[in-house]
């Protein structure tokens, strides 16, 4: 799995799936369309500023609330390469892995990385490097099967590839 590298968007505790993708847009399931409203109710600037490869860093319980897979889908379709948080809500955690959006729990990184920092993540080792600050943190490395699952683009392709 390739490293993720990009600039950081930073959020706090309990970012819920309603603010990640508000229900008023759930009459669509098209990833590109969902991406145009990603994070809209918590950060109106997100969709204007996000670039391919960028990274979301948040605090506790990221992705809590509704089970809508549209939430990680919209984040992935926005070009975000990884979400780092202190903890994730469990349904969001499953959904992100299942659709092939890399996520890492790392309380230290979550606390110390600031918005706008350039960050690189090595998924093989779980090492998160804040290039701007010249610091690094040990996140949880993905087990091999999860790396393959994410590299395949999600659970469905993974199953189809017979891995």
């Amino acid at each position, binding site marked *: 799995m390739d490293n993720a590298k990009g600039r950081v968007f930073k959020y706090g505790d*309990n970012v*819920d799936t*309603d*603010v990640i993708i*508000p*229900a*008023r847009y*759930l*009459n*669509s*399931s098209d990833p590109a369309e969902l991406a145009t409203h990603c994070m809209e*109710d*918590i950060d109106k600037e997100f969709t204007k500023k996000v670039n391919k490869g960028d990274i979301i860093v948040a605090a*506790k*319980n990221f992705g*809590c*609330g*509704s*089970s*809508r*897979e*549209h939430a*990680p*889908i919209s984040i992935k379709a926005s070009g975000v390469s990884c979400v780092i948080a202190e*903890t994730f*809500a*469990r*349904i969001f955690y*499953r*959904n992100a892995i*299942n*659709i092939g959006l890399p996520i890492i729990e790392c309380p230290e990184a979550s606390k110390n990385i600031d918005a706008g920092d350039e960050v690189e993540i090595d998924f093989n080792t779980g090492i998160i490097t804040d290039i701007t600050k010249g610091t690094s943190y040990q996140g949880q490395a993905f087990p091999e099967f999860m790396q393959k699952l994410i590299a395949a683009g*999600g*659970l*469905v*392709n993974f*199953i*189809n590839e017979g891995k």
Partner: protein
Amino acid sequence: MGMTMTQKILARAAGLESVKAGDLIMAELDLVLGNDITSPVAIHEIEKMKVDGVFNKDKIALVPDHFVPNKDIKSAEHCKCVREFARKNEITNYFEVGEMGIEHALLPEKGLTVPGDVIIGADSHTCTYGALGAFSTGVGSTDMAAGMATGKAWFKVPSAIKFVLNGEFEGDVSGKDLILHIIGMIGVDGALYKSMEFVGPGVASLSMDDRFTVANMAIEAGGKNGIFPVDDKTVEYLKEHTKREYKIFEADEDAEYDEVYEINLNELRPTISFPHLPENTHTIDQVHKEGDVKIDQVVIGSCTNGRISDMRIAAEILKGRHIAKGMRAIVLPATQAVYMQCLEEGLLKIFIESGCVVSTPTCGPCLGGYMGVMAAGERCVSTTNRNFVGRMGHVDSEVYLASPAVAAASAIKGFIACPEDL
């Protein structure tokens, strides 16, 4: 080491003698559920899978309930996608408008969820069926697709928090106040990845509807599932609603719990969650001390509080009274059966005479879909389950979560109130 009730059910479904917290298991599923928002994504995924149809047409439930009757063209397309999939795969438990209800009120009523079941649903409030002693948990659409295709799902066996209930509710306190109190106490991630097991002598006094409300909001504490032991009331409920056979599981006496909380039901007061997190709880007494919270709208319904006892509580308070001038009160019986019962018991007349509107079953306003979306600056007291930013409409609107009794009394007064204030 003993197992919790949840662990015993998961061990059975995985074909194992025993499991412990942290084990990764593959479990056989008794039911896979989806709605009109999550199923289209799952259907798209299952169509990409190299599988021949679904694992069992009787063990899948498809319930369009969020944006039905179709609120717009895009929603209509989603519902059409679910309908066509159900038809093509001869899904037994597809519920069309006219038969449907809000999924988590409907499935127990139809007898599709029984003790000992392992159930996944692409809806976070799937944890509701723990009220009947089943293991049920919310998942996303891809898990739903894999579940429909294979009849299996993997789980990490959860550890548990035990809530020992003592005494009985007093006054206008109900299951909603209990679960809001618990979420206020442990926080919205207080049970993250864990089971919430509700036990103790106080359980017997809780109605089944109260238990559904409590289990329903386990997810609001981050819980994987919420579960009640099976007792006489559960057995009575099952006699009325199902012909399915079931197996009763009990936690071992030496089961290990991460934490144990003792709760005296008689000490609870009507409890309200202020914006914008369910953990932000205030008792009605605190609310009165802090000053009136004026409101614009009341919603009584949802998978949390749209059952017949909720309707009865609201109607009893509204009977012979009128809602405040300028107030909008929206009542949503959760299923067609609840709606019919409201009709037969004269509750619809009470609601309409008091100035409420009564809607066909839908999740509608709970998630800001339709049927009561709010403008900037507006406030709603709602019997629903989430009060996140923008949940019921504009990002500058506010949702206050409460019981049907508080919601009805607040509609009459025009500010947050309880029946004692009338």
